[in-house]
Structure formats: structure tokens, C-alpha cells
């Protein structure tokens, strides 16, 4: 069930576009902000609310890299794996994250603390390698800095 607050925010997005379904992506973003991800139940609720079939909205949801259709951890790590970060050695960061968190790309730590995802170019190539945790961008990273950074997120 969409909450009153979610419906209110989705209604605002609907008011900005010609047809209700045009607000589908915005509605998914709103639900994801509330729950961290978009469950099947949430997807059905949103589809019904904006007048789309569940399949149609799911085809939209799964198209975009940052709409999560599976649960994620409390913090999402997006590691830039694009070319400048490759040249500057992002693989060392990746391997350290694999080892420290005992997960690989697409997985969540056993304690639900972190989900690790690859991300194409974070647009900070002059400060490569880089990663984002939630809304925080870290640049010019070295493996030695990683543990301290991770410790900020509980």
C-alpha cells in the first residue's frame, strides 16, 4: 500500500506531466526513497496508481541501473569501473572491498550493512579512482583509505 505521503508526492509529479503514466519513473524513485528498493508489491501499487500494467512498469524499472528490484543494504557502495578509474587502478579497490566485506558485485553483506555495485563513470575522472557511498563521493582513493571510510557507515 502506498502511504498518504507517497501518494501526495506522486500526485505532485503527475500534475507536471500530460498523462499519469508519464510519472511512473518518478513514482518508483519515491517508493525507493521510502523503502530502499522496489518490491513486487510496491511495483504493483505504483503501476495501479499511475495506470500502467505491472509488466509495463517492471520493464521500465528493470531498464534503469539505479532502480533496485532487490533489497539492498543500509548503505549502497557504487564503485566506478569506467576507463579512467581502470587506468588509475580501481581494481585494487574492488578486490579490497570483496575481501573486507566478503561479498562481490550485486551482493549484500550478511549483516545488511553494505551492498556493492559497479557503476559506470561517476564523472570525476580527473580524481580517479572514485566511489560513492549513498550520497557521499570519495575521490583520488587509495586502498589504504578504504577501511576508515567504511567505518563511517554503521
Amino acid at each position, binding site marked *: 500500500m502506498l502511504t498518504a505521503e507517497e501518494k501526495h508526492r506522486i500526485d505532485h509529479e503527475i500534475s507536471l*506531466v500530460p498523462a499519469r503514466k508519464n510519472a511512473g519513473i518518478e513514482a*518508483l524513485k519515491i517508493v525507493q526513497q521510502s523503502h530502499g528498493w522496489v518490491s513486487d508489491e510496491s511495483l504493483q501499487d505504483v503501476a495501479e496508481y499511475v495506470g500502467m500494467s505491472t509488466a509495463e512498469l517492471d520493464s521500465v524499472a528493470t531498464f534503469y541501473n539505479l532502480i533496485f528490484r532487490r533489497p539492498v543494504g543500509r548503505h549502497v557502495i557504487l564503485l566506478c569501473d569506467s*576507463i*579512467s578509474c*581502470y587506468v588509475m587502478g580501481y581494481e585494487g579497490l574492488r578486490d579490497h572491498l570483496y575481501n573486507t566485506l566478503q561479498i562481490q558485485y550485486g551482493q549484500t553483506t550478511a549483516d545488511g550493512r553494505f551492498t556493492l555495485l559497479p557503476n559506470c563513470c561517476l*564523472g*570525476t575522472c580527473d580524481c*580517479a579512482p572514485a566511489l560513492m557511498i549513498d550520497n557521499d563521493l570519495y575521490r583520488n582513493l587509495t586502498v589504504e583509505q578504504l577501511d576508515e571510510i567504511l567505518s563511517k557507515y554503521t
Partner: protein
Amino acid sequence: MEKPLTQHIVPGRKPLSLKEYEKVGGYQSVRKVLQDMAPAEVQALVKDANLRGRGGAGFNTGLKWSFVPMGPEAATPKYLVANADEMEPGTFKDRLLLEGNPHQLIEGMIVAAYAIQASISYVFLRWAYKLAAQEITQAIHEAYKAGYLGKNILGTGFSLEMHLHTGVGRYMCGEETALLNALEGKRANPRAKPPFPQVSGLFGKPTIVNNVETLCNLPHIINNGAEWFRKLGLTEDAGTKLYGVSGRVKKPGCWELPMGTTIREILEDYAGGMQDGYLFKGLLPGGASTDFLVEEHLDLPMDYGAIQAAGSRMGTGTMIILDDQTCPVGFVHNLQHFFAQESCGFCTPCREGLPWVEKILLAIDKGEGKPEHLLTLDFHTKYLGPGNTFCALAPGAMEPLQSALKYFREDFERHIHEHHCPWSKSKAWQPSI
């Protein structure tokens, strides 16, 4: 040296508030066009200035606008969209403008919207640009409050709404028709052209999509004139350009320089040359979808014509350097992995061809390549090239590959013949899925 785009940007400092921006001449171009110029005059001025699209394609901006139906018979509402998606790997120039001076972008958008008589505008911003989102939200709010946005701007009868739209991550959104689909709440597949967006774009209405850097040039062209803008360039291309360098150079960064500055000057004088212990091997001049250039090209001016004549594209003007200690096969494999992941899957050559290319490159990188693999790669560069796919994603992906096969073919052959990667320190790059 004039630096109109970045003159008020101080790294690490908050961008100018509206009041501060007005004090240094901000929003004067809005007053000028709304009060003294007809939309057709604005279009003609920008066309005469030879402002070419800074998103990579380099099409004349005024000419692009001229395809929008004008007059009382034209469909309404018309839309203007600032393409702030910037997901091309190696490209980070628009971020500087978005975070550093959002009012300059808004001012340029008002000028562009007036030129085509658009009444609704969007900033299509990529998700990862969190700071830019904050700054633009604040700047739009200030512009509404001061009467530069909304109904009856400055009492001239012209009205413009502006919305910030943050994307949810897909490289395809940078392609203008795919971007429009994303704004409509759909999958970001590209659309067939014609009809062109200028005639039938967002929600079926006339729409112009311009790159952030392109739009940021407009206030300065209006204030200083077409001739002033043309003279900023050192070659036949007009204006300044945001050039960037990433990779193993001493001072990676982004600088506003005259259009036509040579690659060598950018690399050596601004980026400080190669890091100690690394040698230059090649570069992609303007993002992941441009052809490699090598040593012999370093004295070329970075402009649309010279780089094209050398067999590449200036693209976004942000160079990625390949050094002698990075495996060229691994480098190209990383790029093809990106393109294969980001293909929207809409047309078969791209959906099927790019993963095939990626798998072959992985095999070669791991020392499992076969001589016939190079022929298969050559085959793909031809059949995923221009004219064989629905949009430019796959042809763009083939540019670094075809030029790597041309300039670094010996390195590919060594991997195959020696059955391992000669860059012994660099491990074979593993795909993320």
C-alpha cells in the same frame, strides 16, 4: 586569455548566489533578448557565432534551433531540455559548470527557450551529480523568486517554467531521443528520426535538447556578439572549450581554453605531462566513444575539423590517456564492457554484437585468444559501424576498438601468440557480472 564560461568558478567555493551573479553582469542577456530582440534575431546571432554543440556532435546550435516550427501556427507547448546526463566514461566537464555556476546555465536556458519560444524547460541531470542537484535546485528557486522564471518574465509577456529531473542511471539517456523517452517515464530507447525532436519531441511537441556547455555559452554570445565569440577560437571553430585530461598525467583536470588549442599544449602545459615512470602511448580525445590518436597527432589543434581529419572526433574534449604500463587490450575491453552493459538492447546488432566483442577481448586479454579473433573484431567494427544500428551507441563503441586494432595491433597479436598478457602486472580484467 578570456574564459567566459569559468570566470566566476572558484574550485572548492560555493557558486555565486543570484545577487552575486547579477553584480557581475548575470542575467543581462535575458534582459537584452526579452526586451530588445525577436526570437529569430537570437537564432540568427547564435548561428552566426558558429556555436557548435559541445555534447560531442558539434552541430551548429542556431541551425538546430531553426528547425523548430515558429509562429502562431506552431504546436504548443514547446520544450527546452538541458542535457546534463554526462555519463560518457572519461567525461567530466559539465560537472564543473553545473556545480560551479548554475545561474549561468539557467540564464543560457532562458535565452535558448526564448529563441524557440519554449514555455517549459527541464534540466536532465544524472543521478550521481548530487552536489549539482543541490546547487541547481537552489538556483532555480532564486531565479523564480527574482522573476527570471515563471509567468511574464520581467513584464515582457514571455513565460518559462523550469524543472530539475534526476535520471536513474543509463548511458542511453544522453542520446537526445532516448532522453525524451526517459523524461516521459519510459525505457530510454532511442526514437526513429524523422520526425526530429525539433518538430515532434517531448510529449509529441517541438523540443530542443542542448548540452550544458553549449547553453552556458549563450549569455556571453548575446552580451558580446557573434564576432567576439568567433574570435575566441584559434582556428575556424569558435569560442572557448572545456578541455579535460584524465589518466597517468601529473595534473589531471579540466580547463577552459581557446577552441583549437593543440593537444600537446593541453597535455604538457596544463596536465603537466606524463607522471614519472610512465610514457605516453595514445589517447582518446573526447570520451570513450572516440578513436585513439597517437604521438604523431599531438600537435593537432583540438577542434572539430582537425580531429576529424585525423580519423577521430573531438567528442566532449575530455581526453583519456593510455600509458605504456596499461594494457591496450585491457583498456579496450573495459570500454567494450561498458558499452555492452549500457546497450539498451533495442536493436539486434548492438545487443548481440557488443557482448560478442567483449567476450573476445576478455579471451585475448586472458591469453586465450586465437588469430581468427582479430578478424572477428575487424568484422564487428564494420558491421556495428555507422548505418547498421538504430542509434550511435554501437558505432561509438567501435571507434576506440577500430583505432586500437589499427595502432596497437601488435599488442593484440602478442597476447594471442604468447598466450598471456604481456603487461604481467595487470591482471586480466574480469567482467562485473
